[in-house]
Every structure is written in C-alpha cells, then in structure tokens.
C-alpha cells in the first residue's frame, strides 16, 4: 500500500492569472482610447428623427423610432424571438403529463390569485399606451409573461394551453408582415404609415396611424412567446 504524496506547496493558478492579465490589458487599452475620445455634441441622426417625429403625430418619440423609423429592425427582432422560442420548444418540449414542481406556500397561492389579474391589466395598459407614455409592446409583453411565471410557480396544475399560444403567435406575426406588405401596396414603401396620422391627434389614444396597432401586435407576440419559453424551462418530465 503506497502512500500518495500530497504536495504542500499551493500551485500557481496559471489560467486564472493569465486570463486576468490578458483581459486587464485589453480593457485598459480600450479604456485609454475611450477616455481620450469623450463624445462632444455632434448632430446625430436621432436629432433629425426627433424633428420628423411631429409628422407622425405620436407623443412618444422612442416608440416612433422603434416601430416606424426602424420598424424593420423590430420585425427582425420579432423573428429572432420567434425562432428562439421555436428552438427552446424543440429542445425541451415534453409530452408527458407528469411534472415535478414542489408544492408551494399557501401565502403564495392566495396572493398570486389576487395579483395575476392586476399584473395582466398593468401589462395591457403599458402595451396599449406605449405611444403616449414610456412603455410599449416589449415592456407590456414581458410584464404579462412575468404574471404567467408567477402563476406557474405557485400552482402545480397550471399550464398555459399550447394551442392558444400558437394561435396568438401566428395571428400577431402574420398581421405584422401583412401590415408591411399593405404599406408596400398602398404607399410603395414597405412598412409605410398608411392609416391617418394627423398631428392634431397627438396625445389621444387613436393617433399615429399604424404605430399603436403594430406595437400592440408586438406586445401580443412577445407576451405569448415569453410565456411559452418560461413554461418550457420550468416544466420537466423528470428530475434533472
């Protein structure tokens, strides 16, 4: 029976030190360059877009930029979220009924039943009033998804019905692209603003043409997809 020799000298953690040195060097050079080039007041594209915002008749300029001036980026981002939700469903979807979730606290069960409608209402409000005050589709959708998350962790038997989510997603996605194509037909510009958007209507709920419509569609899509992602990540068919 041989005695294993244990070295008493602590080894030098080479990977940690070299990682520290390398990343420190990198960050210090970047910091040096950034501190020498503090941004001065230049005329950015955003200032020009702020002046254009009045022609759309929407109070929240960030919403106009997100939905209209850069609406194509928002369409791409919706596509990314859609594909990610598809991929997570592909990886983690289990058809078995058994899911192991611990039985939750009595306080949590009662409180969540009270809070869920309020969260849902608040999320819908943020979504619909996105063009008048800070907020919008993404923010409202995530709030609704957090309400669904609350219900999922507090009630063992709660399950978001798959067919409802798929129907909402399909409706929202197809209508977003169709609005863009209608803009192409009517105004010869993809995602053009073809509904009336008079500046005199600014501050009212029905203003800005297609902008509140598109943001509500975005909100429905984001809310349903985030709920699906959250549910796929929580439900498990056996203990991991």
């Amino acid at each position, binding site marked *: 029976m041989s005695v294993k020799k244990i070295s008493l000298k602590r080894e030098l953690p080479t990977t940690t030190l070299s990682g520290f040195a390398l990343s420190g060097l990198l960050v210090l050079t970047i910091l040096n360059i*950034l501190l020498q*080039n503090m941004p001065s007041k230049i005329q*950015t594209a955003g200032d020009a877009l702020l002046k254009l915002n009045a022609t759309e008749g929407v109070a929240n300029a960030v919403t106009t930029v997100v939905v209209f001036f850069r609406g194509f980026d928002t369409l791409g981002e919706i*596509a*990314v979220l859609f*594909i990610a939700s598809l991929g997570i469903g592909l*990886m983690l979807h289990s058809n078995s009924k058994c899911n192991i979730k611990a039985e939750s606290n009595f306080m949590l069960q009662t409180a969540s039943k009270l809070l869920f409608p309020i969260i849902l209402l608040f999320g819908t409000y943020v979504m619909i009033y996105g063009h008048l005050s800070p907020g919008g589709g993404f923010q409202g959708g995530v709030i609704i998804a957090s309400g669904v998350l609350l219900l999922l962790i507090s009630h063992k038997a709660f399950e978001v019905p798959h067919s409802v989510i*798929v129907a909402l997603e*399909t409706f929202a996605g197809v209508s977003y692209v169709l609005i863009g194509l209608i803009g192409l037909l009517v105004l010869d*510009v993809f995602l053009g603003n073809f509904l009336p958007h008079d500046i005199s209507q600014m501050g009212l709920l029905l203003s800005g043409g297609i902008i509140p419509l598109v943001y509500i569609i975005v909100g429905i899509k984001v809310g349903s997809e985030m709920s699906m992602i959250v549910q796929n990540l929580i439900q498990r068919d056996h203990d991991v």
Partner: protein
Amino acid sequence: MSSILFIALPLLFGFATPILSKFGKNGVAYTSMIMQLFLLALAVSLLTTTSSYVEIISIAPPLGISFVLNSASLFFVLLFTLLMTLFSLYYLIHRKTDAYKDETKFFILLNMLLAAAIGLVLSSDIFNIYVFFEIAGISAYILSAYKKTSSALEAGLKYLLTGAVASVFLVFAIALIYINIGSLNLAVIAHSFEALPYNIKLLISILLLIGFGFKVEIFPLNFWVTDVYQGSSSLVNALFSGIVVKAYLFVFFHILYLFLPNGDFTVFLVYLGAISMLVAEIVGLRQTNLKRLFAYSSLGQVALIFTAFAMQNKDAIQAALFIVFSHSVAKFIIFLVLSAIEKEHKSIHIDTLKALNSSFLRAIMLIAMLSLLGIPLFAGFIGKFLALKSFAVEGLFVVLAIIIIGSLIEAVYYFKLAGFMFAKGEKREPLKIALAQKTLFGLLAFSLILIGIAPITISGFLLDASSVMLDGKSYVSMLVGG
C-alpha cells in the same frame, strides 16, 4: 416587383406555418418549395435591371433603412436562392425515407436562414446588418443541434458560444460608431470615417475585425468550425458552407471597402488569409472523419476567398467571386452526397467511401473535388488562376508561394480520397439515389464543367459586380445625395 419580397415572403411563411400545416402532412414542404421557386424566378427577373437602385423601407435614407440592389448583391441573391431551391428539392425526396421529426420547424428555420442571408447582402444600415446576423446565427445554431444527439448538441453549443461572443464585439463596435459619427447608415459612416481620430478608428476597426472574424472563419478564430461541421448533419453542412459563410464574407468586405477605401489593412489581411489557408490544409491532412476533412478543406477555400477579396483590386475581386461560385456548388454536391452515404451507412469514416458503388456518384464527387483543386476545364481553375495572377501582378510572391503550397497539400488528400473511392475493395450494395436527385447532382456538376470550359458566360457579369463592390463613392452618393 420589389426586393423586399425576398425577406418578407420567407418571414410570412415562417409565421404562418401553423396555418399551412393544416393542409395535410406535406402542406408545409410543398408551399415552402413553391415560395422558393417564386423567389428564384424573381431573382432571375431582376437580372434585366441594368442599374443599381435603392429600395426604401419606412422613410428615405440616410435617416431610414434601405436596401441597395446592385450587380454584386444580385449575384449573391441569385446564388442563395438557387442553392436553397435545389436544397429543398433534394430534401423533399430525402424525407421520403429519412425525415426529420417535427419537420415544420425545419422548414421554418431553412426559410429564416434564406431571408437572413439575403438581407445581409442587401441591407445598407449597420444595425440592420447586426439584426440579420442574429437571425442567421440563431437559425444556424438550431439547425446544427437539430438531431438532439450529444454530438449535435455539442456542435450547437460551441456554435452558439462563439456566435454570442462575436455579437458582443459587434455591438461594441456599432455603439462606438454611433457615439462618434452619429448615424447608422453605411454611406454616412463611410463619408465620415476617415475624419475620426486615429486611435478610435483603430479601436473600431479591430473590434469589427474580431466580431466578423469569428464568423468569417479566419485564423485564429476558426477553432469552432470543424467541431460544428462534424457534429451537425451533412445536409446542414451544405447550407453552412454554401450559403451562410458566403453572406458573411460579402458583408465583411463590403463594409471594409466602404470604410477603408485606401486599403490601410490590405497587407495584414492578405497575409492573415494566406496563413489561415496553410494552417487549415496542414491540419486537414491527417483527418479520417470525412465531415471533418471536408470542413478543413472548406476552411482553406474560404481563406483563399478571403485573401483574394482582401487584395482590394478589380481582378482579384472577380477571381474571388468565381471561387465563391465554384466553391459553393462543389461543397453543396459533396455534402449532399455525404448525407446520402450517412443515411445508408451511419458512419462517416474515410473507408466508407469504398461503399460508393455507383459510378455516377463517383464521377460527380470526382468532378467536385477536381473543381475545388483548380484543375483546368473545371470552374475552380478559373478562379484560382485569376487569383494567383493578381497576387503575382502585385508582387506578393510570398503569398503566392503559401497559396500554392496549401493547394498542393489539398491535392494530396483529395487524391487519397479519390484512391479510396476507386479502390477495388469489397463490394457493398449500391446506394439508393432517386432519379430526381441524380438529375440535381448532374445539373450542378454540369454547371461546374460549363463555367470551366466557357467562363465568358459569367465573367462579364462578375467583372461588373467587382467594380460595383469597389466603387464606394457612387454607393455613398446614391444613398446620401439622392
């Protein structure tokens, strides 16, 4: 007919899939095929437009996003739609015996990948390019891990990790560009990029190089490529090497020619490309797994295209476009044949090549490999010859020598492969290939021979495309002045 349809139709198809799947088991597959045929017809019809034009989205550039369709982007759009249509055709027959489960998701991912690749090539706004990078990337990660075996999941994980790190550097570069220049339109940035102070220009260029470098597969940022190709199924590898990496190459060099038209980094990039090719070919020499071997060959060819593009003169870019065409078609053939072998024999060791018992398939593989090597009478020869000529004209004899050594090493292992293919070993039963698939392979191989014998058919178009790519000034005036 607007070029937005290239993006809007696949997105519409993707979102509407649950409706389309109500039309029976094959509803999604056939509608996808029909839509891609329509896009191919649209791309061919756009060949008749003579001048570049700008497609406006929402509001006019330079404040809004726009698409620019010129002969360079049209070449890539044609290539991508053609390859994707042929891929769908191949898959429609392949699925009769070996379908993926949950197939509607597979078609959605294919169409999103096509839309993102075309969007990368057409877009003229740097943040829009970033969004399309993410769409293409996320579709590629899921396609890579589709089979859900442990090696497929590992490939998907590695691909996702490197893609996410590349995105961080890209966002950093875009943030610095907006802070210092104030616009996201490529034309406005190109106009003001020269005037920036030297150190911030250097920082932005290096960040862009690192961010793009992961995706364009140059040394030393290409450690992920071979593992990803080995873990994914060969069908998906055909898409990666034929469509995805070509779109990334075009975006990288389009931005380089716009931002640095005086060729500040030319020498560095040319040497980087040449070294990447040499390293890839040397390591590929001792591989015995066929998918990994062809992944190293793909790395070498992509490095050659990178070197030719980096020369930044008209003839070198024309050579690079020739190699883009011949490499995409040849790798498509090779990976589709590999997928047929994989379906039958479930192993991709180099000995499996002995099982290629149909002489038709052996001829097709031989044509593809000879074209990749650059043997005269095949399409790859024209590209390689023009590239080597442009290196010699510029006096870069070291680069010339490195590329020739790399090509010789590649020839060594291709001849080894050919030896296995034509070996008189034990006879297994021949692979079952449908007639339609044989026609497809024949068509692709015929195009390689056709371009090899008569390159004059597309050389004028490619010369025009290369001069358009280099002409940054007219691009800028088209978007800012007009």
